[in-house]
């Protein structure tokens, strides 16, 4: 063993504080930490947004107060918020489903447009006769919207599954292609009188709204919330069931965590990649159909102020949980609604970006913790 001979020589000490800050990985993540960190991230993001607003010359307090009032202040605006939230719930679900399998579907925007296109095709090309009942018409629009959206998800899904083509770029490119395609139909085929939109759909193609029942219940007067919200909520429940209770959901989670282990367990990754992308596309397509049938009642340019992209942030904020997507989508719906009136026009987008950034940056707090320890004595 070591012999302690003579005097131990200690090297001259550099000046060091007696305390030391150490960052170490966490072994366990307490349940409460995650929502608290997310909340903190949002608050910090809002503060930064306020700062930028102030620099640019706006009044942040006024702006935020205005947002709160304009989004949730009365029954009327609350109803409008829900209208904005409806497509967001669906695109949020679309992104959540895909992200669970680590499929980066950035194409919810394009799938949304395709869904709208599909619904319009059914009505405008007379596939469903004008005299058909609302049930049949809306039903056909629903199917078309879902199918077109699923198709737009199938393409990048198949390319990824068969040829390992990066889905981030393919879904993105398909966004632009979908918008161009839709524009062609709007301007070149269905445009009437040179306007940038098709003619308004017949009433049987309109989704019912709360205000339709204003006669029976006067309180519902002027409320624009429409049946699409029901579609969205049902979709949320279905996605919840699939992800958490079904066998397929287990497979999706397994593939997302470790594709090689999933393969080893005998799961067909190729088939699931395609199916999940189609499912995701279908959800976004449903969103497009709901917007067409419930809000604008015709096909027009720019039906989406970026619902597909906001869906990404919603999914991330909801931690890919389909039930949580609903309240988060309502929040963002309010932001978009009220944000229309804020100058400069880029502010809502900027704030969304800051929120997403803060969210992913804050994730680090869930994986590591900071400890202050007494610096250990050296021999």
């Amino acid at each position, binding site marked *: 063993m070591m012999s302690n001979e003579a005097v131990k020589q200690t090297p001259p000490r550099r000046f060091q504080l007696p305390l030391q800050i150490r960052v170490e990985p966490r072994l366990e993540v307490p349940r409460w930490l995650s929502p608290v960190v997310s909340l903190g991230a949002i608050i910090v993001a809002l503060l930064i947004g306020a700062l930028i607003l102030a620099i640019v010359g706006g009044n942040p307090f006024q702006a935020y107060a205005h947002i709160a009032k304009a989004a949730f202040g009365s029954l009327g605006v609350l109803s409008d918020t829900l209208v904005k939230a409806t497509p967001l719930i669906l695109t949020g679900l679309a992104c959540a489903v895909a992200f669970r399998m680590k499929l980066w579907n950035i194409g919810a925007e394009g799938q949304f447009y395709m869904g709208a296109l599909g619904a319009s095709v059914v009505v405008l090309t007379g596939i469903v006769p004008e005299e058909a009942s609302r049930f049949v018409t809306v039903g056909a629009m629903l199917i078309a919207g879902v199918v077109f959206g699923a198709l737009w998800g199938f393409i990048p899904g198949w390319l990824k599954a068969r040829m390992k083509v990066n889905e981030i770029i393919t879904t993105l490119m398909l966004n632009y292609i979908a918008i161009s395609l839709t524009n062609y139909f709007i301007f*070149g085929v269905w445009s009437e009188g040179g306007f940038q939109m098709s003619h308004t759909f017949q009433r049987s193609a309109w989704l019912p709204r709360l205000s339709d029942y204003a006669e029976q219940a006067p309180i519902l007067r002027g409320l624009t919330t429409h049946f699409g919200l029901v579609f969205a909520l049902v979709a949320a429940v279905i996605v919840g069931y699939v992800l958490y209770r079904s066998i397929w959901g287990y497979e999706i989670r397994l593939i997302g965590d470790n594709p090689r282990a999933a393969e080893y367990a005998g799961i067909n990754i190729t088939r699931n990649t395609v199916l999940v992308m189609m499912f995701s596309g279908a959800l976004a397509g449903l969103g497009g159909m709901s917007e067409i049938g419930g809000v604008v009642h015709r096909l027009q340019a720019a039906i989406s102020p970026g619902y597909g992209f906001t869906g990404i942030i919603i999914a991330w904020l909801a931690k890919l949980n389909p039930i949580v997507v609903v309240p988060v989508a309502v929040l963002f719906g309010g932001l978009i609604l009220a944000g229309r009136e804020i100058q400069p026009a880029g502010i809502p987008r900027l704030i969304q970006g800051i929120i997403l950034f803060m969210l992913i940056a804050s994730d680090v707090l869930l994986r590591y913790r900071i400890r202050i320890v007494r610096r250990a004595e050296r021999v």
Partner: protein
Amino acid sequence: MDPIIILHAGVATGTVLLFATIGEIFAERAGVLNLGLEGMMLIGAMSAFAVTVQTGNGGLGLLVAMLAAGILSLLHGLVTIHFQADQVVSGLALTFLGVGLSLVLGEGLSSAGAIALLPTYTIPVLSSIPFLGPILFTEQSVMVYVGYILIPLSWFYINHTRFGLHLRAVGENPTAADAMGVNVYRLRYIYVFVGGTLAGLAGGTISLAISPGWFSELTTGGMGWIAIGLVIFAQWNPWRAAFGSYAFGALRRTILDIQGPQMILGLRNPFFFNPYYGFFLQMLPFAFTIIVLIIGSREALRKRLGAPAALGLPYIRGERGL
């Protein structure tokens, strides 16, 4: 539909893609995927234009553009390198940030009377070379010539210098590089920054030279995303990146020109007679990007080559050793 004109414009527009693509090649070779190019380019375009309009100094505008984009990309670096967040989502957040920021700060920038704020040059002897001369060396913006120099320079740097060796090592096997004393974190930050500055340069090139002015989001029109696709097509090689970029530039010009003449090759030009077919033309660059990606992916599978092995993965100095 003059081929010389198309190729000439192709080189010009392609230069924008070239800068962005080569910048991203540097970042990805170091192992960091930066999807925020569209946002970086937009910030670059806006700040270059704003500064140059104010000060009249194009060079200063470009410098500010590069710095602004570079600093923003460092945020992405911080979050992915030190905080080990997912590189894909962080890149997307960066895009939102860049787009939003440039829209907000660029509010009120008027494009009135926007002309090219950077000089164009014709190189005396070289411009007389038949066919290539009028395309490459005649009446091209100074940025195009900068592009010409950047290609061989970056290729040489990556493949034939010690720094290039370290760059490649960090992207292939950061554990090995770390064990040999290469500072993985520091190099990744540096090359993320380089990628950002080049993207900013690309944006500045648009707003000062190629399509002068500020048109909010339309300024970049998706070119940032196309650049990311081109990186894969280029197999992370600057020469192939140049080929791809210039080809895309030519494609864009072709799309514009093809709607002009009544007859093409003796046939009635459908794009002339039905202007709405123009929407399909608009799709072409994006459809081509998908095709180019498919080609790149299949080649990678075939040659068993491909991306830098550690691309997209955060490097954590081993805690448990294994």
